């Protein structure tokens, strides 16, 4: 019948159209513009003079490559730290009762209600020289003189993990929550220990959530500039702040293209890596 076919094909498309237009106008077109800007040369008056790869190659110098690799490292370590903390938490959340589940989800979402800068200032009070952490450590007798935590990589990492953790917990939780507990029973029944069951059944089946969470954390942390700037001071330069620091615009575009390409390649590598890890776990 006609009405059914209308429903199944045309309405979903119509519903998706606004977001599609939005994406094309404000995501794909600007990206295309950035790519164009990075490979075109301009006259002093701002006129296009021709095609050039000079600007791109200008960034393959030790200084810039170091910036990019430290950004990769920042993203990777943040994603790994978040995964390490988020997985047990998500597992616990998925295995507790319905009311407890909803309460924990609520707790996880609360930070989203507060302005980002307020989070940063709250952490200032915790980490500064006369702050809560130093005070606590001194009272406990672990420290005799306060340590300046602020403006260190440590402060940056704390804030990064704090801010990105929910993005890792939620996808892992949702994949574990759908998990059929009878599969665990079947695995135990077939002679596997709890650890073997986790490696061979639970973890591989939660992989979609792990992968989603990993990229949700890894990709934005690679380009993160606010947190390293505010918490880490100017000791360490990352990709985000470097692009922001460029005032010509044209060089910034080229750097963004270089950084993004490397990020993309690293994503493929991570994807393969996660695949390998799952397989290795299943064999062990």
């Amino acid at each position: 019948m006609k009405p059914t076919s209308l429903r199944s094909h045309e309405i979903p498309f119509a519903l998706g159209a606004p977001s599609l237009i939005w994406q094309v106008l404000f995501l794909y077109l600007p990206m295309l513009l950035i790519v164009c800007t990075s490979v075109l040369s301009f006259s002093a008056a701002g006129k296009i003079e021709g095609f050039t790869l000079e600007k791109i190659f200008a960034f393959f110098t030790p200084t810039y490559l170091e910036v990019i690799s430290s950004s990769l490292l920042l993203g990777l370590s943040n994603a790994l730290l978040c995964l390490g903390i988020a997985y047990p938490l998500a597992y616990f959340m998925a295995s507790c009762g319905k009311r407890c589940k909803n309460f924990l989800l609520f707790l996880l979402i609360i930070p989203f209600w507060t302005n980002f800068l307020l989070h940063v200032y709250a952490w200032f009070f915790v980490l500064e020289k006369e702050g809560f952490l130093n005070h606590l450590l001194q009272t406990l007798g672990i420290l005799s003189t306060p340590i300046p935590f602020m403006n260190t990589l440590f402060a940056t990492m704390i804030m990064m993990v704090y801010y990105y953790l929910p993005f890792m917990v939620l996808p892992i939780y949702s994949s574990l929550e759908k998990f059929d507990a009878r599969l665990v029973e079947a695995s135990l029944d077939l002679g596997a220990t709890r650890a073997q069951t986790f490696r061979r059944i639970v973890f591989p089946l939660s992989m979609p959530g792990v992968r989603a969470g990993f990229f949700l954390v890894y990709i934005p942390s690679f380009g993160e500039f606010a947190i390293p700037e505010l918490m880490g001071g100017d000791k360490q330069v990352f990709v985000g702040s470097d692009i922001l620091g460029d005032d010509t615009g044209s060089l910034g575009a080229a750097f963004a293209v270089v950084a993004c390409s490397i990020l993309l390649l690293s994503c493929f590598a991570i994807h393969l890596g996660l695949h390998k890890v799952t397989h290795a776990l299943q064999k062990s």
Partner: protein
Amino acid sequence: MQEIELKNIKKSLTEGTILSGISLQIPAGKFFALLGPSGCGKTTLLRLIAGLESVDEGTILLGGRDITNLPIHRRPINIVFQNYALFPHLNVFDNVAYSLKIKKIPKEIIEQKVIKILESFGLENHIYKPTTRLSGGQQQRVALARAIVNEPAVLLLDEPLAALDFTLRERMLIELIELQDTLKTTFIYVTHDQFEALTVADQMAIMNHQGHIEQIGTPKEIYEFPASSFVAKFVGSTNTLQGTLQKTSPDPQILVPDLGAFSLFIPEYKEWMQEGADILISIRPEKMFISKQELPNFSNRVKASVEAIVYHGRSTQYNVVLHNKLKLQVFEQNEEHFTQEDIDYDNEVFIHWQKESAVILER
């Protein structure tokens, strides 16, 4: 092939006490069915044997060895789950090979064993398919293959055919019987379906709503000689008459109020069979005969009127009502064309039965 012995098993779950002291002996190498209504605790009992739950009290012996506190993964007992619980990220081969891989058996032997068992289940064309692409019956076979590939001492089946359609279920029942026959593994089959239990079992136990075992025996014993009115009503359909026992006359009789006396056959007297005791007789619908005329050679007959006639093909079911409003069911085999005298709605008929066909039960 080992026997299972349960001694005074007690188990409470959050919903309340499920099992309060079950003792049961399941003979080695037999197809044993555990039949009971939904929620009677039969699945819990199975999970206790498998080790998926731990007992509150009592002992579980496997071939004489106490396995009560043996963790699940070390029990030589495997279970086929109701929804099969196949691993969705593994293909048919890897699902079946799972327990062998855990045991770190050499690859070549695993391959040999798995392929052999899949061939015997007619799955040789589906070895490397994802399990999600199989039909219900094929998934069922994979679950079975996965459970028996490791040669367990006991195989537990938890309503394994509940998700299959009727014809497939009948075929799988036969396959299960044949499988048990070749493997000689002890099978424990849990179901609420009396047809399945009667079909497969060498021995069966009937559990009631309270989680007590009412009767243990062969399907024939259970069907022909139910030990209680619960068993009589739960296994097959039956007609019951309530009355009091009269032993004084040369022939023992049951005196049913408003209907009169019917003769009984009592092969051996039990203690509760006292003069005037409240009793109940159960007569299977196929052991009653319906006719417009009074037939000779029957020890009991009663007048009735026909309420409904349901034609089943190989048999016809008559629902009749007695003058005291009691309803009875009668099955007649449709043995020959047109030999049945024409019985119609509202006809006055006679229902006959032999006294040997009635089972006498305590009320």
